[in-house]
């Protein structure tokens, strides 16, 4: 298993390299001179030229990219053009808030989405089913930022229940998490419902009923575990989507997390900060996917067995 995880982590390296290369190339085409950005509008052309030379901006494109990668490999992702502080520190300072709202959001989405999806499937065509299906449809179609604005309007402005802006206390994080969670929750409801419906129709469910198992036992002991396998994948995708969603939601609620870092670095042409934060997001998404795959092998005996066999064979080979 460790070997497999190690392999997957190594496989992430070319992906991250690819992302950095693409971004580096794109940023190359974008207008704006980093030296001018750092020094501001009042600096003389000479000062700018001097700084360009100092930063090595006059070198060829590939030389600069190579230098960036080499430094990055040693943990130096450069300094932000705007704040002149190390990119790593900036990300480390901003990421925890994003992590918090993302985790809260995924908890909400999973803890509500999976049970609702299961009930919906078990009581197919009931009032509860129709209601939750409709709600799920609606929530997949509502823009998260609009939902956030509506929440602010009702809960902060009209009823003063929750604070609207900032991230000082956990109360501040409720509304951002809710707005982030809504769409993912809807996706999880839909996915759980449809896989559960499929599982309920399987022959082994009929076998269980023929043994004399109650419908409650059939659902909880036989159906859920099978139905949740594809849902795990959906949840993994949701986490990755949440990181993207945070970008916009942080803006709505004035939270300065990783998303804000990205948006600001884009707006201010802060290449090192943008590269660093996007690569960081890719690595986080990569680890989430890896986690999902590892979890899968623990839940599904078929995949686990495949995996054990493979390592055994490899072991025998070497």
């Amino acid at each position, binding site marked *: 298993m460790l070997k497999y995880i190690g392999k997957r982590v190594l496989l992430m390296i070319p992906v991250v390299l690819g992302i950095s290369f693409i971004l580096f190339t794109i940023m190359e085409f974008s207008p704006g001179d980093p030296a001018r950005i750092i020094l501001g509008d009042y600096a003389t052309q000479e000062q700018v030229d001097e700084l360009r030379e100092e930063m090595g901006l006059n070198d060829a494109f590939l030389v600069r990219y190579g230098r960036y990668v080499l430094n990055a490999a040693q943990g130096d992702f450069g300094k932000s053009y705007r704040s002149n502080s190390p990119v790593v520190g900036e990300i480390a300072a901003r990421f925890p808030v994003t992590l918090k709202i993302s985790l809260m959001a995924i908890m909400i989405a999973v803890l509500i989405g999976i049970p609702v999806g299961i009930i919906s499937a078990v009581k197919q065509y009931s009032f509860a089913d129709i209601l939750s299906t409709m709600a799920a449809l*609606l929530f997949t179609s509502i*823009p998260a930022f609009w939902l956030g604005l509506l929440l602010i309007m009702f809960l902060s402005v009209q009823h003063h229940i929750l604070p609207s802006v900032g991230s000082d206390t956990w109360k501040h994080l409720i509304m951002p998490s809710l707005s982030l969670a809504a769409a993912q929750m809807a996706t999880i409801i839909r996915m759980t419902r449809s896989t559960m419906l499929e599982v309920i129709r399987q022959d082994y469910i009929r076998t269980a009923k023929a043994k004399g198992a109650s419908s409650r036992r059939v659902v909880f002991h036989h159906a859920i575990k099978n139905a949740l396998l594809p849902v795990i994948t959906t949840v993994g995708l949701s986490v990755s989507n949440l990181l993207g969603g945070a970008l916009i939601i942080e803006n709505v609620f004035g939270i300065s997390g990783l998303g804000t870092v990205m948006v600001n670095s884009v707006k201010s042409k802060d290449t090192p900060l943008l590269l660093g934060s996007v690569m960081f997001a890719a690595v986080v998404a990569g680890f989430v996917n890896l986690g999902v795959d590892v979890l899968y092998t623990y839940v599904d005996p078929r995949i686990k067995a495949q995996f054990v066999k493979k390592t055994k064979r490899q072991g025998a080979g070497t």
Partner: protein
Amino acid sequence: MTEGKRLPQGKVKKRSQLKEIWLRFRKNKLAMFGLILFLALVLMALSAGFFLDYDTDVVKMNMKDRLLSPNAQHWFGTDHYGRDVLARIVWGSRISLVVGLYTVGIAMTVGGAIGAVSGYFGGTVDMVLMRIMDIFLALPGTILAVAIVGALGPGLFNVLLAMSMCRIPQFARIVRSSVISLRGQEFVEAAKACGTKNSRIIMRHIMPNAIGPLVVQATLNMATTILGVAGLSFIGLGIEPPMPEWGSMLSEARDQMWYHPYLMWIPGIFIMLAVLSLNLIGDGLRDALDPRMKN
């Protein structure tokens, strides 16, 4: 020659199949509701040019009429520059639909081509192309779009480009898996045995069979694209003012929403309706294409 003889037959069969799909689709009330809603939006977008002049009705400021609540003259009220919200919403439907259609069109063509080549030829070609797609897929769509727009600068064309690039890998994957599952089948082998060119096999024999999941994906993708563009515009990295994009209208309404909530309700509801209609159509199409899933 035999090809020419066989084709009309195939067409007859396909038409009846299409009819069958349509009949199943029509039975689905939600899907029909989605279709009607979507057609209404399309009609709205098409008719916008007939009774609205972009320069005078949509973007021209009129400070003496600013922030009027909905009334007989301005059904949806006016915004903080005195512009008629209804006119901006109607014009905004053009932008959303155009960006949605073009994005999906580009992504489907490019992604489809990559997927078809990758799946059909396999081997090294497949590996290289799919690794590149993996790089794009490694990032959440919004982040990639923000990065690309950030580099290229905001604006209609750049947003379109960024959104398309984000969607290419998904289409490539779908087409690739369809092609792989069809590649080994007898009718493809038969075409190969007849000496048919590769490009012809892909276009004539494989693609028609892969079209189902592709259309479903395209519909659902258009929904997420419209959402995505609205989101980008909302944070100021999408369509730029004064263009009446629904997301940027929401962004402009933020300062007014306490006292003029209609400015926030109306664009949001329209984004929701557009996305909802496409989601309903996509779901309906999926069920109609795969009747096994229902019941």
